[in-house]
């Protein structure tokens, strides 16, 4: 197992390199010039030139990238072009916010998907199955910002049960933290819940029709043991794969959700950086997001051997 993890981490390095290269390239294609924005509205062309020179934007592109990469290898992602703060510091401030939101969203998605998927699979064709299928189809189809508006209207403005926007750090008040993140996490998690439910439903239906499930029934095991022990262990492999994939989608979703609910996380940070072409910040956020996805995949991969003895190293 440690060898597997080590190998996967080594394999992640080229991925990170390519992602950083692509991000760098894409930011160059975006119209607009940070020096113009930064120098101010009434700046003379000379002032803009000076600003550009100061930021190193006149250097050849490969020199700019090389400078960034050299820093990144030492854990320095550069400084924001605007407030001159180290990008690493700004990101580290916001990571816990987004992390909390994402973890809550995944927990909602998975915790609700297990019962809904199992009920759907074991009562196929029933009113429950149909209701769950309908709601999960809607969950995939509804854009999360639209759902977010509906939830805010209902629970914040209508019923007044939950705050509409804003954020309280966990360290200040765990209760308030939870209340502020409840709606955004539900919004963010609903698509994942729907996907995982569908996956669990089809995997459970398939597993319960296997010969081994009939064997388990024939030896007199209780129905719940056939479902939650025998079928579930085999069905969990595709379900976990989908959950892992959802984490990546969900990270993308935080960009919109954080903006909508006024949560000062990475997504919000990334958007404002894109508006002003703050290249080091964009680079930094993308790299962090890439690392999150790579680590998630790694966790999923290390779970497989625990669930499926056939992929266990001899």
């Amino acid at each position, binding site marked *: 197992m440690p060898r597997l993890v080590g190998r996967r981490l080594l394999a992640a390095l080229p991925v990170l390199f390519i992602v950083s290269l692509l991000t760098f390239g894409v930011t160059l294609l975006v119209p607009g010039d940070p020096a113009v924005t930064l120098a101010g509205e009434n700046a003379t062309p000379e002032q803009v030139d000076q600003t550009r020179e100061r930021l190193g934007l006149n250097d050849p592109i490969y020199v700019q990238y090389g400078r960034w990469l050299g820093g990144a290898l030492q854990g320095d992602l550069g400084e924001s072009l605007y407030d001159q703060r180290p990008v690493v510091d700004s990101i580290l401030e916001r990571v816990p916010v987004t992390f909390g939101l994402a973890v809550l969203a995944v927990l909602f998605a998975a915790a609700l998907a297990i019962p809904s998927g199992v009920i759907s699979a074991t009562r196929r064709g029933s009113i429950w199955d149909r209701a769950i299928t309908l709601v999960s189809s809607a969950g995939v189809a509804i854009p999360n910002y639209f759902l977010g508006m509906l939830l805010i209207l209902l629970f914040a403005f209508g019923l007044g049960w939950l705050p509409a926007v804003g954020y309280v750090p966990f360290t200040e008040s765990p209760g308030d933290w939870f209340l502020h993140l409840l709606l955004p996490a539900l919004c963010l998690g609903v698509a994942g819940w729907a996907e995982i439910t569908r996956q669990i439903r089809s995997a459970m239906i398939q597993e319960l029709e*296997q*010969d*081994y499930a*009939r*064997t*388990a*029934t*024939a*030896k*007199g*095991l*209780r*129905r719940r*043991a056939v479902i939650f022990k*025998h079928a579930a*262990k*085999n069905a969990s492999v595709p379900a976990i794969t989908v959950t892992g994939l959802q984490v990546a989608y969900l990270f993308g979703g935080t960009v919109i959700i954080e903006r909508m609910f006024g949560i000062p996380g990475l997504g919000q940070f990334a958007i404002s950086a894109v508006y002003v072409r703050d290249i080091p910040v964009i680079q930094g956020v993308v790299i962090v997001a890439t690392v999150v996805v790579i680590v998630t995949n790694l966790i999923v991969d290390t779970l497989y051997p625990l*669930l*499926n*003895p*056939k992929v266990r190293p001899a």
Partner: protein
Amino acid sequence: MQPSTAPSTALAGTPASTRPPVLQIEDLSVEFLTEHGWVTVIDSLSLTIGEGESVGLVGESGSGKSVTSLAAMALIKHPGRVSGGHVTLDGVRLDRLSWREMEDVRGKKIAMIFQEPMTSLNPSFTVGEQIAEVVRRHDGLSRKQAAERAVNMLDTVGIPRARERARAYPHEFSGGMRQRVMIGMALACSPRMLIADEPTTALDVTTQIQILDLLHDLRAEFGMALLFISHDLGVIADIADRVAVMYAGQLVETASADELFARPSHPYTRGLMRSMPRADEATETFFAIPGAPPAPWDFPSGCRFAPRCSMAGSDCTQGPIPLIPVGAADAASRCLRTTAADLEGPHL
């Protein structure tokens, strides 16, 4: 390992009718919902298996053998249903039990092994655990005791280094070894009745013989009754005291194994026997019964075998044919020609 009261040896040679019945299938009908509507695939089947008795159920694919065995386990599920008759196990009507009560019966009093040893075990649990959970469930043993029983069972069914192998997963076993595991699992709670649905069909010939020998020995040791299902008359000859032949959802002939193999009554049984390749005869061609069995929605109203039977006459298609007693005790045949003179003589 289990203290055996050995009823099979005590009762050996006793006619089946005088043994206390373990499994009684009475007038059982099963139907399935198909695109042709509800179709009867088992038609008024009756079969009694006495204590320690071994009954072979023979027939072609689709004749209803497996459905019969699933009905005996009360495992018929949608789109199938039992439409008539009932199954009695040790005096208890299984159709009167709830699903939960039936869960207490399965694996404890009646157990089953299946045709496909490769897929009938759960790939994600060790074989030891899959045996141990049965005894934990039914005999209330602790985890430790159950694990110990699992090792004993693996040893009983002839798996070498049982203690070590109990921790292995199904994919680490060959087909024959997996079938041994299945047998160990089925026998873990010493059931009174074992149903074996084509347990050797998926195995190669040498392994088949080993598994048959094992079943034979264990039946004597555990003293249980056996319903052995196969399409292979040769296998049935090895293991059965009594044989029941199925064709198109009906029992067409039943007799003691000796009687049936010496003097098959029903033309279908005779056809089955003729179509068995024999080692002691140098033949270039194999005999095959002409035609194919009818689909359940196409069952003829008279004798269902008539369209393929060389002896069929107009009287055969007039209406349903009953099981008609023939010579020996307990023997019967669903054929109007059974007693006809042309059945005598060297037709085989």
